[in-house]
């Protein structure tokens, strides 16, 4: 409820209203979000595919993490900023959107996966398998997890735009309402 009220307050700020009602701002930010998705996820996919040992087999893994990851980080920052702005334009609806909540959970899992990969024992022993065409099982797992998570994140992100399960739409299932934090008694006349 505290968060709900916070979102309500955010939605009423002139900045949020301005973004929401602007003719072009929302579309431009959304396009930037999609473009950086292309750069960020695109590069991440190629690191994952290398970890799986299916492409760039002649390139040491350390070359990709050292020379590609900085680009990925820049794209990631732009992606987060544009994503936050998109949220800020429609805070209350997005906060209660079940796909947004799913996406948030998946993003945390993707961050965890990346953290485990970069801090795990396998990465510390990178020198041993850096140039190996057939990568260790743990590296393959990290790559596969990352790929699956980003596909799921793109899916859930795209679905935020649809209002099938919104609190304002007719109720579909009680458990979806629970996940969305919809309080339908509130709207009763």
């Amino acid at each position, binding site marked *: 409820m505290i968060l709900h009220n916070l979102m309500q307050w955010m939605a009423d700020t002139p900045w949020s209203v301005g973004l929401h009602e602007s003719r072009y701002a929302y579309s431009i930010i*959304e396009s930037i979000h999609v473009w950086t998705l*292309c*750069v960020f996820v*695109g590069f*991440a*996919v*190629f690191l994952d595919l290398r970890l799986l040992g299916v*492409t*760039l087999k002649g*390139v040491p893994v350390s070359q990709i993490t050292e020379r590609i990851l900085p680009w990925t980080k820049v794209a990631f920052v732009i992606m987060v900023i544009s994503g936050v702005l998109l949220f800020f334009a429609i805070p209350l609806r997005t906060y209660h959107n079940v796909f947004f909540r799913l996406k948030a959970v998946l993003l945390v899992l993707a961050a965890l996966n990346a953290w485990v990969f970069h801090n795990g024992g396998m990465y510390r022993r990178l020198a041993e398998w850096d140039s190996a065409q057939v990568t260790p099982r743990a590296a393959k797992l990290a790559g596969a997890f990352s790929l699956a998570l980003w596909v799921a994140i793109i899916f859930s992100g795209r679905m935020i735009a649809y209002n099938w399960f919104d609190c304002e739409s007719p109720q579909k299932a009680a458990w979806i309402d629970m996940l969305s934090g919809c309080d339908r008694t509130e709207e009763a006349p």
Partner: protein
Amino acid sequence: MLLPYFQAIEAGIIGETIRESTWLFPFVEAFHLVALAVIGGAVLVVDVRLLGFGLKRQPVSELARDAQPWLIGSLLFMIASGVPLFMSEAIKCYYSFAFWTKMTALALAIIFSFTIRRRVALAGETRIDPFWMRVVGATSILLWSTVGWGGRWIGFS
């Protein structure tokens, strides 16, 4: 001139099926986005290298050869998912400036990628002046970005 064809496509069974379903359009669209990420990676791994950044220790020809199947694969996936999306709203596309911009850029991007860019990338740094490699990399990024932006703006019109 082309409008009757677009009307026939929109009235066709595939377009109708997608329009009548709640889930189909968003799902195909999400697949389209996943393929966008892959094509982005396949294009940029080579283009960033052509610009003189990224995987500089690898010969550009090696990167181009590695990325090629992913470029072709994701492009086919993009087309396979994009065509049904188009069929469901062909008439809207006909009147959309963004759609025609995207299609023009797409045609140019495909031609450029498989002719000039491919030759330059495969010839490599020993035979091509770095200046021209940069021009080719920048042109490729510009063309493919126009395809992406155009695509996103079809949805806004």
